[in-house]
């Protein structure tokens, strides 16, 4: 029993307007269930998950902080950007307003976060458009285009059906691992990326030291 082992700990935050489904995405990711009637998030909730990226042969421990989208908590949410390695910027495909507000959220991220932070734009609630295309207020192409302009990853997902939720996190992780491989992050530069090291407890972490030296060197 060597405990749970992982190569990296990546800190993620989920941000975006109120009621776009941030908490539901997190719960879908960590518990594989749909949060039917969530209360508005007060402050920040936490969840974590191990994600394996087969191409890199790496296990990543994703620590995800779910932030409050309500305006009154916005200043608090800003405190999290600085320490994050990845950010899910969420909007609701059935709400034009939430997509437009994504610009100001992105501005916040750009102001406060590490410049190398990986940001993925997530259009949530696509399940609502499956039956009734008229409900969609943000065309996929438009969002994709904006993401490209801003240098963001992009995916449309549904916390309800689960479609693309894991994919969203995984593609963000891949991007971060890619950056690590390219040496964008020095070990200490981004507080959001941590190599796993055996700590003072008795928990041994397998293979972390060996892999870390190589992956940062290349």
């Amino acid at each position: 029993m060597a405990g749970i082992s992982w190569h990296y700990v990546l800190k993620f935050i989920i941000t975006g307007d109120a009621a776009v489904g941030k908490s539901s995405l997190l719960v879908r990711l960590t518990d594989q269930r749909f949060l039917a009637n969530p209360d508005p998030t007060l402050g920040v909730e936490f969840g974590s998950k191990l994600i394996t990226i087969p191409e890199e042969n790496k296990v990543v421990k994703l620590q995800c902080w779910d932030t409050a989208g309500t305006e009154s908590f916005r200043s608090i949410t800003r405190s999290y950007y600085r320490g994050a390695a990845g950010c899910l910027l969420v909007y609701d495909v059935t709400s034009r307003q939430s997509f437009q507000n994504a610009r100001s959220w992105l501005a916040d991220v750009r102001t406060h976060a590490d410049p190398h932070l990986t940001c993925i734009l997530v259009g949530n609630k696509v399940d609502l458009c499956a039956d009734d295309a008229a409900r969609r207020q943000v065309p996929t192409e438009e969002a994709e285009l904006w993401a490209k302009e801003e240098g963001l990853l992009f995916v449309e997902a549904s916390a309800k059906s689960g479609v693309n939720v894991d994919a969203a996190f995984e593609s963000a992780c891949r991007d971060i691992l890619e950056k690590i491989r390219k040496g964008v992050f020095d070990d200490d530069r981004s507080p959001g990326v941590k190599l796993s090291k055996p700590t003072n407890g008795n928990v041994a972490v397998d293979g972390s030291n060996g892999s870390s030296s190589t992956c940062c060197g290349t």
Partner: protein
Amino acid sequence: MDFLSQTYVALRGPTGAPQTPDETVTRLADRLSPSTLLADRRAAVLALKGLARAHKQIVADRALPGLLDIIQTDADVDPDIGRAAIECVSSVCDTLDLQYAQRDLGYVHTDRVLENDRTVHKLLALLADQDRGLRHSACLLLTSIVHVRPQKAQAYFLKAPVGPGPLVGLLEEPGDVICHAALNLLSALIRQSPEIQKVLAFDGVFEKLFAIVTRDGGLDSPNTSVEEALKCVDTLLRFNTSNQSYFRETPLPALLASLLYFDPNIQPDMPVPQEFALQFWNSSKAQAAALVLEAIGILLGSKGTGLREGYAFTRLLIEMAMASNAPTRLKVQCLRLLPASAAVLLPDMVLSPYMPVPETNGEEWDRLEEATGIDALLELIMHGEYNGLDATRRQKEGMDLRGNAVGVFENFLLDDRVKEAIVTGMLPPSPSERSPVTPLLFGLILPPNSPLDRVNVTSLQFASVLFAHLIRHNPTTKALARQIVPPALTPMSAPSSATSGPGGGAFFVPADGAPPPQPEVAEAKDAEEEEEDPQTLLQLITEHLALAFLSRSRAGLVDREQRECDRVICMYLALLSQWLWEDPQAVRVFLEAGGLGVLVEQLNQPSELDVVVPGLCAFLLGICYEFNREPGEITRATMYPLLTRLGADVLAGRTARVRDDERIKVVGPDFWVLPCPTPTALNPAFIPMYENETEVWFDWAFVEFWKSNNNTIQRSIVADPESASSSAAQSGEESVLVASLRTVIAKQSAEIEALQTKLKELSTASSAATKQSAELASLQSKVQELSAGAEAAAAKLDEEREALEAERAKRAEVEKEQEDLLVLLDELSSKRARDKVLMREKGLDVSEDEGDDDEDDEAE
């Protein structure tokens, strides 16, 4: 020197005339402006700092904005001026001034500093400054600001552009002074602010805090920063589920176990490391360990499943509570934190308890025989820590430990089958034999001989509480318990085993089972058995209750002895109330064993001072009356006159008065070890035997039982003997529920009755109807027959009529013929007469007689 001369000039003034502080400060404040040379500004700040304490108000009024500007602009460039300015602001914002009148000024000035967020933000940034002194003074000023105006400062902190990074970084610094300051600031900032707690967790504050703990040598370190860091961990975790779920994913929970020298990866078959069981303890380590245990408790209680260290934590708590040399206070804490679900592990867990070697001052320890967790727990409850080593003193911690152990035992009993198994284990192996001696049974049957032994009384109380847990509201175990036939206690065994000496002690070790066979014991037993039938447990307790009342009434008891008597009596009354409740057969046994007489005698001449004993007697009598539903010598009808003589209302009143007694009133779910004496007012002259002595009267389960059923009994005690049982409820809520259900049932049964009568009516009606319809049918058929008959008759009639008609016609014809014939005859006779006349005329001989005959005929 430059600084001194400049200051001197500033203070003296250009003319050398004496100056007021006001003038001096104003002049110094003027020099703070950015147009002045840096060196001059520095000198002015230093001078102001010197004046700030004595002239708080003036310095703040004249120079505060300037000082804040200097912090904002100069501190980065020149650490000295920065530090001086910060210290100066600290002085004017000081709310802990020795002069009380100056304190309010500190609040006013702090509010001025907090007018906008720039100073706080700057100070937070300065926490990461190169200069150590500057970091330190910024940290101190921030701490004082957060203490004075926490909400505002916390709000600014959350919006700070630098974020919490510099503060978290400060925790990494070597050196006690700055680390201590940083911990102070941290603990002030995180107080009551879940947002800050989460932000800091996000920024890795847990890791930094534990780094401080391990860096300083763990819990054994004399350094206070270990305890302070653990206090911060406690605040960060306690009410913050988000942080809890973060924390449990980290390697830190394992570290918690390691800090106590416990193996976080321990498996059920692995023994516990001895360095865990036997540690060196001092008060500072105990404080720190208490915090570690709290954190473990929070994690065990936090939501979510699959805590990796779950088993290790549970085991740690159990081992520390029952098989270690940890301070009693920590053991109490361990049992309190043990989750309810952990109790099922106890029977399979093997513990190695330790005992201090006498006269070694806790430095040498004997390892005792291994025992299962549940045996060790029972042993702990029945006799106290270290086999009752210090039980006679009844110190708070030791009593709390036993009380909390009862709580764990209660969790163990959550499944009714466990209760049944335990009570079954107390039954005699065969009808002719007696029950085996279990520690619980032994504690329960100790006779209340006077003078009462303090240790025994406490054992008796805990045994009774445990036994009550087994049988309360459980008809199955009550039925089983009635069959318990306790083993005979010989005069030898009882007192000797009551002391904690080695000989008696062996008797108590649960693993030993039955006492060692002693010839005298066997003889005595035989002798006793020959004399009388063995008593059941219930009979024995009834007898002991009578004995206890007897010893209480003896003249010449000192206060302390009386109190012990009262304690025993209360305990018996409480146990019996719970046993007899809803158990008519047990009521029967109790009444026939003389219980009624005991209660009535007590109620006849109740104590004027004490309300609890008479109240409980009345309560128990009420229960006996209410549940006396089995046929027997003493029926409700025979009890009723007794109750009337005692006054049913009086009894109900006595029962109600118990409520006001402190011994019942103050008991709570986690609080039933009371300071001795409780209540103090009852006997102000009472002096406990030992300092800080505590005492137990009733446990929460009984108090709850009493509170929910007291009203029912008050009602039923005044009820008519013929009235049906009105009480079958188990608790207040349930009794309400039962009452409401009962009304529903009554309503429904009334409805059913009504419906049934209706149905009956209807059915009779319908049967009548069927009868009628049958009659009708028969009638109809008759009618049909009749009508058929009638038809036939009519047809006949017609025929007849026709026949009649024909007859008539015939007759008429005949008549006519006759008439015609008559006419013809008439005509013939008239013709004959005429012919006769003619013949006479002609002279023909005509016979007269013919004519006469004719006339005669006509005349006839």
